[in-house]
């Protein structure tokens, strides 16, 4: 007996556009893990993570008619995810500019690089240092260093040119190093 194949993403998109809500729910089920994976690099807590993920799928739903099917659905969704994360970072930075930066600092005992590595607190230290970067720098460091995406991929996801991505990535890394060194000297 022939096995019934699950519907392709493009078919689910068409069905959603035809008014089938279950088809969109299936798309969400299929791709939410990847969206959560990327968004978790930017969100500070579960509440923020939920907000970003919801924003991603809301934008996807609103613009589903623009999906042409030339590239896989997950690529299209990845671009929306990056855009939503970038908007979130910019918004968060605006809010933090009004509130004291230190008010948001969590435990900064292990801001020394060696100590953080030894204590298995690398992610916390990266987050601590990244919060001192601009939204652009943070986005590019996350995509290049934490998600290990290529320059080309980042250029496609952000809409920036490859040369621009290279320059921004270099500057972001230099700034991050300065921040870590400054915290090391404290």
């Amino acid at each position, binding site marked *: 007996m022939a096995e019934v194949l699950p519907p392709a993403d493009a078919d689910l998109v068409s069905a959603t556009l035809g008014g089938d809500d279950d088809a969109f729910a299936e798309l969400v089920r299929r791709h939410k893990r990847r969206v959560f994976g990327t968004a978790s690099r930017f969100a500070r807590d579960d509440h923020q*993570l939920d907000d970003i993920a919801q924003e991603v799928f809301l934008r996807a739903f609103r613009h589903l008619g623009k999906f042409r099917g030339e590239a896989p659905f997950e690529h299209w969704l990845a671009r929306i995810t990056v855009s939503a994360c970038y908007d979130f970072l910019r918004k968060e930075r605006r809010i933090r500019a009004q509130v004291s930066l230190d008010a948001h600092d969590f435990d900064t005992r292990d801001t020394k690089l060696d100590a953080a590595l030894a204590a298995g607190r*690398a992610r916390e230290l990266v987050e601590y240092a990244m919060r001192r970067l601009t939204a652009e720098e943070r986005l590019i460091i996350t995509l290049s260093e934490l998600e290990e995406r290529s320059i080309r991929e980042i250029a496609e996801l952000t809409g920036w040119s490859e040369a621009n991505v290279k320059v921004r990535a270099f500057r972001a890394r230099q700034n991050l190093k300065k921040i870590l060194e400054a915290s090391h000297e404290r």
Partner: protein
Amino acid sequence: MNDDAEQKLDALFTAARADERDTSRVEFGFETRLAARLREESGGSLFAWAWKLCPFFAALALAASWWGHVNLRAEAATQIVAEATQENAEQVLLAYMTGVSR
């Protein structure tokens, strides 16, 4: 920047990559929350549209009142001419026929 700092930074990123956050708690029931928000958005869209149309209706009201005001003035002028004409019908006819007004 020295190589040591570069290496340490790379080690930090490697360790941070390995320490992935557990998102299962937020993923639980996500579809339900999203569906509720989508319903909320689509339900509220009519109301949102009504608000968006407010400037249009305000402009329409302004245009209508301006039109009414202009028409009222024109009507008043017409009425004055009509009344004057009734009283001096002969002079008006003479002026019209000869082109001479006194």
